[in-house]
């Protein structure tokens, strides 16, 4: 991995309610790449993302130790509210805010974080984010509509736009296409590729080996809270060294 790491995790240990969930995790995510985190259910993928943006703090009874550097800063030593402003997150289930319009769903993060200083700048960011999420053409005439008028796949792209409006350098996605149809999945993937073109670093949890191969530059394989294998997609997908990875790629776990 030659590029400067956007995320660098050293000796990360996470315990929830006394139970070890992540065990001595070490990994690097190179800047400007798409990195897939794969692994069977319960291996700690979501937990790993939530450590990076400190959503883990919302759970009671967690112990986190180690170093999680994002663009050089150890987020574990920062104010969690400041950490979250610098990265976007998309969740497994589409979850646009039900009480806000399509426009407000996108603008809200930019407003909260003072990314936009005027209404015009805000409009511009909303437009940009929706274009980047490949949703602009579908919603530009109904920005005041509530999000439930959109299909599930459109809602998920709205959530991507919401995250993008923070103008983050790092984007975290937790199985973003697990609950949407193939057409929307392709749009989402196109969108992620074009964001990578612009230099954004993307960390994506995925259950689907095919998606990881299509989309990512690097793959990190998690099993039972530990990293069992990491490397460029070509190497991992074609020549996995670890038995767990092989079984995962064959769809056995």
């Amino acid at each position, binding site marked *: 991995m030659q590029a400067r790491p956007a995320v660098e995790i050293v000796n990360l240990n996470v315990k929830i309610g006394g139970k070890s969930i992540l065990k001595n995790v070490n990994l690097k995510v190179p800047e400007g790449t798409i990195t897939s985190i794969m692994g069977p259910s319960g291996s700690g993928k979501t937990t790993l993302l939530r450590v990076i943006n400190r*959503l883990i703090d*919302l759970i009671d009874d967690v112990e986190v130790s180690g170093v999680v550097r994002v663009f050089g800063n150890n987020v574990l030593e920062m104010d969690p*509210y400041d950490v*979250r402003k610098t990265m976007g*997150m998309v969740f497994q289930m589409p979850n646009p*805010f*039900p009480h806000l319009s399509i426009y407000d769903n996108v603008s809200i993060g930019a407003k*909260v974080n003072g990314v936009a200083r005027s209404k015009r700048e805000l409009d511009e960011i909303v437009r940009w984010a929706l274009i980047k999420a490949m949703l602009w053409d579908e919603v530009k005439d109904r920005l005041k509509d509530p999000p439930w008028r959109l299909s599930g796949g459109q809602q998920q792209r709205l959530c991507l736009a*919401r995250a993008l409006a923070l103008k983050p350098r790092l984007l975290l996605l937790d199985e973003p296409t697990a609950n949407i149809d193939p057409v929307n999945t392709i749009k989402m993937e196109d969108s992620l590729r074009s964001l990578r073109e612009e230099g954004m670093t993307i960390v994506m949890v995925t259950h689907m080996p095919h998606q990881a191969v299509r989309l990512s530059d690097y793959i990190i394989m998690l099993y039972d809270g530990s990293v069992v294998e990491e490397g460029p997609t070509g190497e991992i997908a074609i020549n996995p060294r670890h038995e767990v990875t092989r079984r995962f790629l064959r769809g056995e776990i």
Partner: protein
Amino acid sequence: MDTRRLKDKIFTITVIALSIVAIAPVFHIIIYVSYRGLPVIVESGLEFFTSIPNAVTDPKPGGIAQAIIGTLYLTATASIIAVPIATLAAVFSSEFPRSRLTHVVRAASRSLLEVATIIVGMLVFALLVLPTGRFTAVAGSVALAIVMIPYVYTYVELAMLSVPRTYVDAAYSLGMSRALVIYHKLRIMRRGVVRGLMIGVTKAMGETAPLLFTAFGARNVLFGGPLEPIDALPLMIFQFIQTGYDNWIKLAWGGAFILLISYLTLFIVTRVLVKEVKY
């Protein structure tokens, strides 16, 4: 007709019949109160809303303005006291469900719900009426506020706890402060929150017992101020209906009709104005 469809039909008919039995009393009340109350208002005309009760010997019953003003005043002031306290407590409990304070508040609220409201009246009597030596509107407001608090608290807390976790995660993931997240949770659950407020307000509007030894009732002036006794619709109804004087019994029915209309309007207006958030 095969037996399955027959069973289906019997089931449907049973459900409809039972529903009718269940809501029949409500309609009975609405119809009966209108039947007794509406003619009184027609007989008194505008005076019903603008003047105090006439003497029992008067040919016309007069009005219940003092009771309407009293109920408006008591409900408004009780809400001003109760709603902020109850909402803050509810937000605290839902944000810190494991806190010691939350356990205490919940237990207190639950016991307040169990306690007969006349006990609340006696408590306020001991605290505010005995020491000052007078029945006051303030004592009435405080008694009604105490009655309201556990209702508003329970409903608002329930609403806050039912916000789907995923919206809370999304809000925090955008860097929102805790206060801002709470604000958005309240907005997502606006229907439940408003329902809680409404139940509190209707409780306060309809209670008689807590007012007996606090607000006491005053029927010779329209409004005497916060430090004087004050009338209220349920208090007036309760006392007038058992007097045996024709005029006052009429006013009691007229007042009951006004109370009923206020309930219905409140519920319909909030239902229309505060739409459920769909997701």
